[in-house]
């Protein structure tokens, strides 16, 4: 991997050269070495390796702003990137989404537990680990096992013409295991993620075992009956459905019509035992970072505190637009295809842990459905929260002290209503990150009152 010193050389050049042509410029030089192993039918299908070195730029010219994100190899490439971005920005109209950047220089704390020194050697043995994960799932009752393990390694240098400068490096892994019986209907999922893969073989094997157990427990699932039920949502499901509420405490989403939190500031939107934050300092968080994209130091922002909507997340621009302070949440986000934009964005969404065991959550007096995994959430209206999502893998009807596997149902409800109807929190808080949860979310099992479950009419 190129040293941080080399990244700094490229970043310094971007700022030195770009400062002469712009009113402000931020450069981030990012090197990544990622690997992935995908498997299905208990076989490894493909092993992948990605090598990338890219330059991300944000420039300000009067009221105009421009961005780019492109591969580079040399200072000549950096110069061309700056020239191209300046040329393109010059001919754009003024941006209505710019009100300033971080202009103070800070020292940044070093985050612990974000880099695995042994990641390269782990990547080499990862296929063997995956074969062990498959064996574990089979041992617990799976007939077929599928999944993917992603391992990432990133090193970056960043500098702003307004003063801030820093560098950081990090590693992550995320494992998704799906155990299946011969039948299509009976399956279970296990997830694991973190920042130190070389010390995580045990938890990876546990994910395989959990998937295998759930798949076995799902055998014999019968068609569920539509109706209104209390739901117990595993951390995986809670992260997707209810994690979306604090994640949408984002002024950009509100402006785009994509958030249900417009005009809700200060309101009680959940019970008092629910607190959720944007926490870029969370130890072991997949997106933990000592500073944001502009160089504002990271801090923890309580979005929902004791059930009350307390804060949106901000970068410098939205803070000024909303008469607030930056929360250190400036990120270079994707907008559309191939377009980047400097926006507020969540790093890790972190909920406070609860105090109920899973057994206590399942100690219910009326028919309740335990959903262990979901996918394909779609909204009819983001502003009101009307949506549906499909439970997949093991799902159980909890009734009279028994768990019976059921299948083929859909949660068709409203995320704001469900957030308000959280009934109890588990004490099993865990970090969730996978296909359906793209913002790392640390959350526990949740029980929700009176949710609408639907099913096919024919």
């Amino acid at each position: 991997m190129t040293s941080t010193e080399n990244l700094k050389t490229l970043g310094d050049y971007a700022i030195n050269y770009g400062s002469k042509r712009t009113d402000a410029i931020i450069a981030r030089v990012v090197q990544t070495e990622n690997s992935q192993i995908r498997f299905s039918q208990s076989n490894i299908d493909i092993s992948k390796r990605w090598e990338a070195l890219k330059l991300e730029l944000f420039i300000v010219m009067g009221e105009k702003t421009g961005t780019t994100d492109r591969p580079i190899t040399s200072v000549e490439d950096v110069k061309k990137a700056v020239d191209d971005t300046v040329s393109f920005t010059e001919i754009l109209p003024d941006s209505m989404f710019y009100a300033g950047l971080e202009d103070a220089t800070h020292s940044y704390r070093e985050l612990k537990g974000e880099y695995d020194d042994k990641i390269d050697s782990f990547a080499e043995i990862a296929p063997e680990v995956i074969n062990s994960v498959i064996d574990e799932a089979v041992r617990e009752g799976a007939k077929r096992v599928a999944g993917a393990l992603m391992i990432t390694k990133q090193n970056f240098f960043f500098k702003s013409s307004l003063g801030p400068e820093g560098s950081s490096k990090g590693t992550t892994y995320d494992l998704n295991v799906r155990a299946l019986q011969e039948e299509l209907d009976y399956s279970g999922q296990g997830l694991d993620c973190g920042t130190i893969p070389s010390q995580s073989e045990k938890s990876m094997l546990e994910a395989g075992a959990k998937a295998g157990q759930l798949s076995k427990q799902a055998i014999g699932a019968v068609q569920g009956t539509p109706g209104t039920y209390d739901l117990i949502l595993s951390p995986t499901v809670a992260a997707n459905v209810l994690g979306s509420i604090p994640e949408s405490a984002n002024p950009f989403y509100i402006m785009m019509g994509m958030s249900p939190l417009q005009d809700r500031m200060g309101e009680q939107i959940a019970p008092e035992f629910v607190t959720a934050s944007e926490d870029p300092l969370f130890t072991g968080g997949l997106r933990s970072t000592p500073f944001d994209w502009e160089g504002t130091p990271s801090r923890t922002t309580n979005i929902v505190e004791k059930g009350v909507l307390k804060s949106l997340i901000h970068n410098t621009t939205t803070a000024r637009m909303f008469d607030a302070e930056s929360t250190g949440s400036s990120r270079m986000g994707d907008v559309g295809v191939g377009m980047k934009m400097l926006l507020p964005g969540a790093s890790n969404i972190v909920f406070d842990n609860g105090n109920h065991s899973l057994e206590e959550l399942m100690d219910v007096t009326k028919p309740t459905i335990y959903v262990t995994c979901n996918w394909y959430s779609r909204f009819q209206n983001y502003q009101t929260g009307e949506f549906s999502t499909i439970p997949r893998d093991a799902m159980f009807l909890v009734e009279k002290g028994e768990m019976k596997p059921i299948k083929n149902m859909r949660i068709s409800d409203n995320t704001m209503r469900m957030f308000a109807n959280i009934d109890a929190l588990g004490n099993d808080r865990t970090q969730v990150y996978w296909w359906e949860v793209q913002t790392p979310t640390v959350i526990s099992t949740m029980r929700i009152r009176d949710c609408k479950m639907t099913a096919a009419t024919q």
Partner: protein
Amino acid sequence: MKLASIMKDGKDLAEHCIDFGQKLGADYVEARYVNDTTRSLAFRNGMLVSGGFTPSLGIGVRVLVDGSMGFCSFDRLEKNLAEGAITTATKMARNAKRKEPIDLGESVTNVAKWKMETKQSLQDVDIETIKDLCTEANQQMAGLASFVFMFNANVIDKYLVTSEGTKIDSQLSYLLMYAILTAQAPGGSEQRFLDLTLAGGWERIKESNFIENVKNEVERLRKSAESAVKIDELMTQPIDMVVGPEVAGIIAHENVGHPSEGDRIMGREGAQAGESFWRDLKIGKSRVGSDAVNVSEDPTIVETAGHYVYDDEGVKSRKRELIKNGILHEPLLNREFGTKFGMGSNAAARATAFNREPIIRMANTYFEPGDYSFEELVEDVKLGVFMRSFQEWNIDDRRYQSKYTGSEAYLIKNGEITDTMVKRPIMETTSVGMLSAVDAVSKDLRFDFPGTCGKGDPMQGTPVYAGGGDIRFREIRLGGVG
């Protein structure tokens, strides 16, 4: 600063990757050099929020080693970097120790050049012209509670080379455009997420009546928000449904196209996009719909987002008939799964970028047109709904349980479409339940559903088209309304 020696020409480096992979003992090596440029603008309520010029360039290499597949990609055209990445991918593939070796079947040795035909290349369109178009598009949306318009001019040059002798040069050209619309009315708001993608050159803006289409979409959404009502009568009995080509398209894509993907059928997407209910059926024998159901997939149709002449494994494209007269007819296959099915590839391998592996994807999926006029479909419906467009939808990962919630929908009474708009009618059915209820398709084939299809891990968002004639379903029990 020491930087590795740079090979400027991506094609030369791609060919070097083939030689290097073979030296490492790979049985098959494939390299794709991709140079992708996008010019983008994003607007909120008519005002610019962002613009960018984003080039992406790199090489993706697949190696088949002892029956196991390895993939690597790199974005700097450096020989040492390429060799290091291929060495690592080869090592990882060897360590995989697959029990069942991957077999790509017969060699493919196509040599060709092709490109999406354009009258006015997107690369020749100046930014002023693009800004003018965006201004005009934004003007059509004025008056809505909020509106977002995103424009991307995207040109992709590719060079595919393999150890078997395939060499394909190609160029793709897309106008990737999206809108998020919110209409507010006293009874609440309605939203619409529109994919307005066009394929080809700048001339497609005029040829497709783009501005007029945007204007109509906005007007319809506003009307839905203002006047759609819940009609209880529709929930008390089975009704007939007529859906337009947009809804036909999403049904063709989700309930037929996805389950027909050979990799799903054989479980390769098991932990991500899922498997397929086709697995337990017999191709050529199993009935999944009425005789009126004919669904095809065709990448050879020009001026569509799903158009290509050769796929990303170098196989020449052709039309695929997925369902014929209600019976499963042909799955979508790449070389690996074409071999497993014993049918050979039908050119369904697509990769969205240099850093993604080619996997089985749809192109243009549609209900084949029938013999009816739209008026004939409606004239003997006593009580029903014409669902012209949809908003919320989803389907389970075996592609069997689907839900489509209407956006613009009208009450049909006694053979006529009334002025009464129906609020959010829901078709929540199984794939077979729904396809079995089709009794007629109109003769007006339209691809009213451009979309970005998501699949793979890491995610690959592929431009596709979907459509059909209008479809009539008999005796549908709605899952909800209002």
